[in-house]
């Protein structure tokens, strides 16, 4: 595979839509103010966790001025059943979790819809619910596979024997709480019907995917559904596929025969758009006298709903990180009366690597080895799982480069010995990893007579800078400057393309854009002169993606954290966070840095702050707003830096790039937890590391 000669790629081109965003000219899904006669729908959520609706009394509200319709399971339009049972909005009187949408009110104003919805009287036949995940939950079962299609369990060698005979071993259980994606822009949709044709302005990570799903739900030809998503204010996985907002807006618009808008409230986002499952993970590691791993075992317990299965692939990174002859991973799910967990930034790798990289730190202490050295000693020459060669793997370079930049050399391994006034100080390291996926996509490239070029692809820019990166890729493939290239995205009319997810957006779309633009350049060359109606070529990368085998494609990185813990209060501060990543060729150094430090910030937030707090009596996450569900504030993130090593990968894709949207969040929480241990001698094995988990376990100050 040849790598395109680069000019724009690698530069720090500013976001093309940046000025439109900061001036407010960029229109998000809920901001289509040129659409007239818009009505508003407000969802009503169940107040029980399990049972059945006995009666809905809409008499007090249905005749109110401005109320246009009250949707209930009794009058909602029929939807075709799909595998994603969360989308079967108002199709049954059964209630599967607290917060599930059980009715909705459509009105001429948002305020009227909301007030009426809150007055709707619903009676339930309530049943006892089961909402608490435990390591030995009676409903635990082995799913067919884990997301999206990985084996549920893997086993090589004699794990138990190797552990029993290991020179050094650790055996610990780590827990992560429910985490909520909370993109800045809530899930929002404006739905408009023209006869049997549906137009959606929708906040999502893939307009093509939403188009296909809505067509299936409403039994329409996909061509009759048009989804537009020009600007999207974040998703972190929670907009990866169509969500209830699109369905409810479309249902409502059909019923009241006018455009209907729905922007979910922050409260709704804690129940109906997905979240990261809590996990309980037992890790056992065995090593020989030299610190070479002899056994790795990772057993995961997590939850799904009673509506459908979502099996987070929590242990998959453990399968490929380190060399060891004896290895075992398992996943078990509890079916709870809770909302269905879904993807959240690095599903699988993110919680899994918190556990594995914490256990590696604990093993390093057992072996009396520097945690960097322990990782370097266990570097596998090939993918331990498949035996395939790596297309590239730079973990060791990242660890060494990061250690130099961070000032790791000479680190005193003793915990709880460094004071700065009332603060104990420590440092920690952890590895990061994320697969370098790519999916098939279609793209069109067009040369205009005036010397400009237009590329069309159903890519999504959810704030990552995808539009900008694709413009750079297109310009280089066309061998022109970025100023004569326009890339149009976020429109299902542009054809099939995968979502902005799995860190595969730029790789997949960039591949199709490269192919289309390369072919266009050749076509233009053949023509000599561009005709009045331009030249357009279409590309589809299905064959290239199909042929992409023979290697394990994976990005790696290393993260270093400094933690300070107040001995009087248990307060934790992370004054320094530094990551070095091996992610192939970086397309745009500015947006890439932003992606990486964004991921690391979210990882820091996971380490110290984020937790969906379950109230078992009600069966919901009670801290369902951003005042109570804490994410890191600016003051929590002081000195944060992301770097990358020069990694050339001629196998991964034509750009030589690996995805960077998720790897930044992987390993951060372990690096912070390891630093907290180094500072205090206290190992917190259940996130987040809050002050009350440290207070009372800290050393008594002597200085």
């Amino acid at each position, binding site marked *: 595979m040849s790598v395109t000669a680069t000019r724009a790629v690698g530069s720090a081109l500013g976001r093309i839509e940046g000025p439109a965003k900061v001036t407010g000219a960029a229109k998000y899904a809920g901001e289509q103010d040129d659409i007239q006669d818009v009505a508003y729908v407000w969802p009503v959520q169940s107040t029980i966790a399990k049972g059945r609706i006995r009666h809905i009394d809409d008499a007090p509200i249905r005749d109110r001025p401005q109320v246009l319709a009250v949707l209930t399971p009794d009058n909602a339009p029929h939807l075709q059943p799909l595998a994603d049972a969360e989308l079967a909005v108002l199709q049954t009187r059964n209630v599967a979790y607290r917060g599930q949408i059980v009715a909705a009110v459509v009105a001429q104003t948002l305020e009227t819809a909301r007030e009426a919805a809150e007055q709707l009287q619903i009676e339930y036949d309530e049943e006892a619910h089961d909402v608490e995940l435990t390591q030995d939950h009676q409903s635990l079962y082995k799913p067919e596979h884990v997301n999206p299609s990985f084996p549920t369990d893997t086993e090589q060698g004699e794990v138990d024997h190797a552990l029993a005979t290991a020179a050094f071993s650790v055996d610990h259980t780590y827990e992560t709480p429910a985490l909520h994606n909370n993109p800045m822009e809530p899930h929002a949709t404006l739905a408009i019907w023209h006869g049997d044709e549906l137009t959606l302005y929708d906040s999502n990570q893939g307009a093509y995917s939403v188009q296909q799903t809505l067509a299936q739900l409403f039994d329409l030809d996909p061509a009759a559904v048009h989804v537009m998503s020009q600007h999207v204010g974040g998703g972190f996985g929670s907009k990866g596929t169509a969500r209830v907002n699109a369905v409810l807006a479309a249902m409502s618009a059909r019923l009241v025969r006018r455009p209907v808008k729905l922007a979910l409230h922050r409260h709704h986002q804690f129940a109906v758009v997905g979240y990261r499952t809590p996990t309980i993970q037992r890790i056992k590691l065995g090593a020989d006298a030299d610190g070479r791993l002899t056994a790795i075992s990772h057993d995961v317990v997590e939850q799904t709903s009673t509506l459908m299965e979502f099996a987070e692939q929590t242990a998959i990174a453990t399968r490929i990180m380190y060399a060891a002859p004896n290895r075992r991973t398992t996943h078990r799910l509890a079916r709870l009366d809770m909302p269905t967990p879904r993807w959240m930034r690095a599903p699988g790798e993110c919680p899994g690597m918190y556990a594995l990289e914490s256990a590696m730190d604990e093993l390093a202490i057992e072996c009396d080895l520097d945690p960097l050295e322990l990782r370097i000693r266990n570097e596998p020459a090939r993918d331990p799982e498949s035996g395939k060669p790596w297309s590239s793997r730079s973990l060791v370079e990242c660890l060494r480069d990061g250690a130099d930049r961070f000032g790791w050399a000479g680190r005193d391994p003793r915990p709880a010995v460094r004071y700065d006034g009332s603060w104990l100080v420590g440092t920690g390291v952890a590895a990061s990893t994320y697969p370098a996926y790519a999916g098939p996509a279609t793209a069109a490239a067009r040369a205009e007579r005036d010397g400009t070029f237009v590329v069309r692809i159903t890519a999504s820019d959810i704030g990552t800078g995808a539009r900008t990166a694709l413009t750079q890729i297109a310009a280089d493939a066309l061998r022109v400057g970025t100023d004569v290239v326009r890339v149009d995205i976020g429109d299902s009319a542009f054809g099939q393309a995968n979502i902005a997810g799995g860190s595969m957006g730029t790789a997949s779309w960039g591949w199709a854009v490269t192919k289309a633009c390369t072919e266009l350049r050749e076509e233009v060359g053949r023509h000599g002169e561009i005709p009045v109606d331009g030249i357009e070529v279409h590309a589809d990368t299905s064959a290239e993606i199909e042929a992409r085998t023979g290697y394990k494609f994976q990005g790696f990185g290393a993260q270093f954290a400094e933690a300070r813990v107040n001995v009087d*209060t248990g307060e934790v*501060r992370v004054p320094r966070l530094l990551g070095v990543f091996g992610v192939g060729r970086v397309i745009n150094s500015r947006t890439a840095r932003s992606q990486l430090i964004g991921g690391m910030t979210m990882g820091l937030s996971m380490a110290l702050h984020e937790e969906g*707090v379950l109230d078992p009596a009600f069966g919901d996450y*009670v801290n369902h707003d951003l005042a109570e569900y*804490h994410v890191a*504030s600016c003051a929590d993130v002081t000195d944060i830096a992301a770097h990358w090593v020069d990694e050339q990968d001629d196998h991964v894709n034509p750009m030589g790039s690996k995805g960077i949207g998720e790897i930044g969040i992987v390993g951060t929480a372990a690096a912070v937890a390891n630093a907290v241990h180094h500072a205090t001698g206290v190992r917190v094995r259940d996130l987040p590391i809050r002050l009350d988990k440290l207070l009372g376990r800290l050393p008594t100050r002597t200085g």
Partner: protein
Amino acid sequence: MKAFQFSRADSAAGAVRSVAANPRAMFLGGGTNLVDLMKLGVERPDELVDITRLPFDRVHLDADGTVRIGANVRNSDLAAHPAVRTGLPVLSQALLAGASGQLRNMATVGGNLLQRTRCVYFQDVTKPCNKRRPGSGCPARTGQHRNLAVLGGSETCIATHPSDMAVALAALGAQVAVTGPDGDRGIPLEELHRLPGELPDQDTTLRHGELITGVAVPALPFAERSAYRKVRDRASYAFAVASVAAALDVHDGLVRDVRLAFGAVAPKPWRAHIAEDALRGRPATAAGFRAAVEAELAAAVALRDNGFKIPLISNITVGLLQDLAGARS
């Protein structure tokens, strides 16, 4: 949100008349808490009377050293006022430890005092809450109560008062000026907020239609040596899990006078009289500070998840008093 009447008062007497005449009317200050609660359906007034144009927007330093603060002074302006910064650093620090810059620019002194608890059950109208719906029950006792009260709670309610500013004002012995249908009166800040007892829905001793017009902080020269320490779950923009306001006057190694109040541990700003009494005239030592705070906390009652607040408040109080005594750098 329920529809409501809105009017803008041009006199305090007119504002009081309007609200007193309608049992479902409320005064509107900066709106940073009330409007949120209206969106949540927790507060459902029929009528809002905007009092932000009333002339209670000045900070005045009297000749005797009393600092008079208008009820409409914005939190940011109060925190920045030179008389507050130099004479009452504890108040300035408490204000700046609260909320965010944007909120402090809107929030008024009167509104800050009257903000309501952040207990998650109080804020969720789909759940029982004795403060919101008397007699409906308190799910917090067995549910999520990590940030609720260890002092002053009752069987019916363990909500905490969320203000930082009020903790400093409690320590400073502030007096709240009120005007109402029956004329003007003053209320010691300590008596403005009440403990829940059997009436958890009643946060304060104000009567319906009474309007806070200002707060007076009596002269307290040694408050130049005062400070606020707030512990929260992130570095900024979070309510306290424990806080302490303190002013300390040490002479010849002995505590000549002290003011101490705790935040986020009780349904009201908790003036620590027991600790103050135990400190006055005693040596200003860490052991003395610790013993005094522990005497104050002897009445503390911990539930499953909030017991950590007891050693936490003790540690930060001892640390802060040591700092004020110059005992640690």
